[in-house]
């Protein structure tokens, strides 16, 4: 009996050592504690269940290992004859049941807390698109798309990867700290899932339905997440960046956004023609953010699902046809309608860029229609024509 106890003790101390090493690297590889009351509750729950499970594991594996060491035939152990006992069966039915009840109580409490999204200070509608997020500040009339900012060169290994590789966007969602923010999550095409671990929020974005989640961020900072539901070829390339600002900074940001929106509206009214250099420069940016996942930076696409734009009949042909496809998409394919996502200037720029890149402007090869400039006014006209 003594030796058993000593063996158990030695074994336990090994386990404790392991646990120590474990907790040392847990800071990097465990669930983040996060910056909201809910994320902290979830973390506590996660660790509680984890330690309960570890305790059960030590017990079960302990007995198992003891038997495997001591009840070997090579040690001359003769098999016992027992093969049933109602008493022990009842014990190991009832005790786990009680442990489960003990687990379920805190889990229920946290779940109730998560569901209570009443009295929000701020409502933000989040819409998942293939493969970007759109944020609508319902109380402020601010609305924008948020695209992956990592360049194709980094993804293709032609440029060194930045610190936030695949976790950076062109325009983050900005929110105030210490306010109850209600997220209304939906999708435009397929199911996505909006997940920011540090906020303790993961909500599937489902087309045709709106689901709610909330967060109250306690610390200003930048929090990164990713789409968590397979949504097609760009699933790995639609990150989420949340920037939490203290109230005054947030107010400043809101005012700025309204100013930007005003300026954009004015610029559109002016409708002044842009030069080729301007269009090409803007077009390359739009192309990189919007088109490269499928059509590739080289314009070669990934046929047959995603056709090449280089030498394409449409891109080297009639402008009207190309504009119509960019505005309204192609039904039954992954080509979406970009009309509602991009401004007239963006579309004019990206169409111009496509028509003048990869040798598409070679009129000797593709005929007279190839190349050329597209102005925002033409896009506006095309929009109007199709809406009539």
């Amino acid at each position, binding site marked *: 009996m003594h030796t058993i106890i000593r063996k158990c003790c030695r074994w336990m101390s090994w386990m404790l050592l392991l646990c120590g090493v474990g907790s040392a690297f847990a800071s990097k590889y465990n669930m*983040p504690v996060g910056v909201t009351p809910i994320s902290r509750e979830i973390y506590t729950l996660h660790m509680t269940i984890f330690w309960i499970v570890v305790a059960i594991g030590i017990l079960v594996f302990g007995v198992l290992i003891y038997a495997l060491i001591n009840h070997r035939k090579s040690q001359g152990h003769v*098999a016992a004859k027992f093969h049933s006992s109602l008493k022990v069966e009842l014990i190991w*039915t009832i005790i786990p049941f009680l442990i489960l009840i003990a687990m379920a109580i805190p889990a229920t409490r*946290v779940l109730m807390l998560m569901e209570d999204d009443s009295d929000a200070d701020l409502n933000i509608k989040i819409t998942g698109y293939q493969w970007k997020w759109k944020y609508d500040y319902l109380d402020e009339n601010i609305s924008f798309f948020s695209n992956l900012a990592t360049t194709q060169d980094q993804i293709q290994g032609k440029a060194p990867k930045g610190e936030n590789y695949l976790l950076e966007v062109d325009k983050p969602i900005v929110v105030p700290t210490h306010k109850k923010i209600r997220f209304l999550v939906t999708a435009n095409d397929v199911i996505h899932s909006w997940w920011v671990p540090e906020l303790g929020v993961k909500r599937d974005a489902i*087309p045709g*339905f709106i689901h709610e989640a909330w967060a109250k961020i306690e610390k200003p900072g930048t929090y990164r997440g990713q789409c*968590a539901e397979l*949504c097609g070829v760009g699933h790995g390339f639609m990150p989420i960046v949340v920037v939490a600002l203290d109230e005054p900074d947030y107010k400043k940001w809101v005012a700025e956004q309204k100013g930007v929106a005003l300026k954009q509206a004015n610029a559109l009214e002016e409708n002044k023609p842009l030069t080729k250099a301007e269009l090409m420069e803007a077009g390359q940016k739009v192309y990189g953010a919007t088109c490269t996942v499928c059509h590739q930076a080289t314009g070669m696409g990934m046929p047959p699902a995603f056709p090449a734009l280089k030498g394409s009949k449409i891109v080297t042909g009639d402008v009207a046809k190309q504009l119509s496809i960019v505005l309204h998409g192609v039904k039954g394919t992954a080509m979406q309608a970009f009309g509602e996502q991009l401004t007239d200037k963006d579309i004019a720029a990206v169409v111009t860029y496509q028509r003048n890149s990869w040798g598409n402007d070679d009129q000797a090869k593709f005929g007279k229609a190839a190349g050329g400039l597209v102005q925002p006014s033409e896009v506006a006209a095309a929009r109007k024509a199709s809406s009539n």
Partner: protein
Amino acid sequence: MTPTRVSKHHDDDHDHGAHQEPGFLGFVKRWVFTTNHKDIGTLYLTIAMVNFLLAGAMALLIRSELFLPGHRLIAPDFFNTMTTMHGLIMVFGVVMPVFVGLANWQIPMMLGAPDMALPRLNNWSFWLLPFAFTILLSTFFISGSAPNYGWTFYAPLSTKYGPPSTDFMIFAIHIMGMSSILGSINIIATILNMRAPGMKLMQMPMFVWTWLITAFLLLAIMPVLAGTVTMMLTDRHFGTSFFDAAGGGDPILFQHLFWFFGHPEVYVLILPAFGVISEILPTFSRKKLFGYHFMVYATAAIAFLSYIVWVHHMFTAGVPIQAALIFMYSTMLIAVPTGIKIFNWVATIFKGSITFETPMLFAIAFLFMFTLGGFSGLMLAIVPADYQYQDTYFVVAHFHYVLVPGAIFSAIAAVYYWIPKWTGHMYNETLGKLHFWLSTISLNITFFPMHFLGLAGMPRRIPDYALQFTDFNQIATVGAFIFGFSHLIFLYNIIQTVRGKGKKATKRVWEGAHGFEWTLPSPPPYHSFLTPPVFVEEASSHEAWDVSDHHEK
């Protein structure tokens, strides 16, 4: 049925094999037209092995792409087809057929029957499969990509946005479902009608019991899957809107239907594995299975609960809190009967007289690692925590821990355990042990780091990842390659055993083996038991549960 006289195999001499005509045509005809349970079992095991290597190769492609961040080997779209096909083939083409194959070989022998109850149906249910998998694999040659929406093929990604090849996948699933339903009917008919005189239901071997329950699970869920994919088909082509909100449908309806099939399906994959483990542990512990009655009840309880937990796959999809609570509780409840099984297995080993032949090694690995998978499953049941775990590598780690050391390891253990009986020759024990150690260690190198990746925030099904996930992805990839190639040792060992390279196996093969199959010669006669043996059991005496003493006179 009145008890029949105990028989000797007086007809063994003129009944040793299939009637095979000479030449290649004779070979083809024998295997295509066979109605013999052993031949069909062999066919099932063969198709499972082929699919295992194929889907395993796909996993290695996935792991190669994930060795480093950045686009390296395969394009994101092809990556998605790899994850989809790896999952579909492993579930429908490996784990399901391997256990049907084991059922075909073992159930008639364990019951003391000459064959399955419905031999022609048996032939048909197998031969549907090669066609189903040919159709499924043909999608790689269809323009516009093979299925690329994950093995769960959620709508609308698979309906409105699915590539043309989706229709072929739907058709393949229809055929596989038909095959499973026919197979289940056959297994139920065999178990209920063909038991040796004197063998009551509560005296059947555990492997037979778990298969009986599995067959009923399959009968209930396969029509649901068939209905779901049919609804997909009509949504895609005939103007319905079951899963399209724009037409008044609901994409979440798809998830409810899929997981109403999908969750019991998980138990279809694991219950026969429980049966195998319940056969192997007593043999090599030389001690009767502890708590047989409770083992049967626990299996039935797991099967029942498996029907009422499906929403736990959908907590983040937005279910009402009442539903979330109910499904959390029912999911946690599954831990009780599963715990009973684990505890009973430990009690079976405890105070036994243990030896460590290859099947036993794999069974012990099952005990340890399936329990680990169960622990992470319990963590996943906690809804608030599930919001953080859902769709991350934590889930990938969880289901690979229950499926690989769970279902796959028990199938491997079963092959090592019964192959001397099937072929009449022992496998190479040294190679078997080498296979065990390589695969067990590399399995943990592959899947254990995935827990941490998931907790640190890596979503599943992404072809490229942020830099902080690099180190553990590299470890997992190295492990995956060792794991994959270790199975070539297994394949070589099987081939050598089938070719008769090992030493001759005895009737009983293992010192502690009990049951009707061990009373037959190795290899057993073509029509196992032409005259039913008599089943005798006296629960009070350890020696008497062994039927062979009565049989081998």
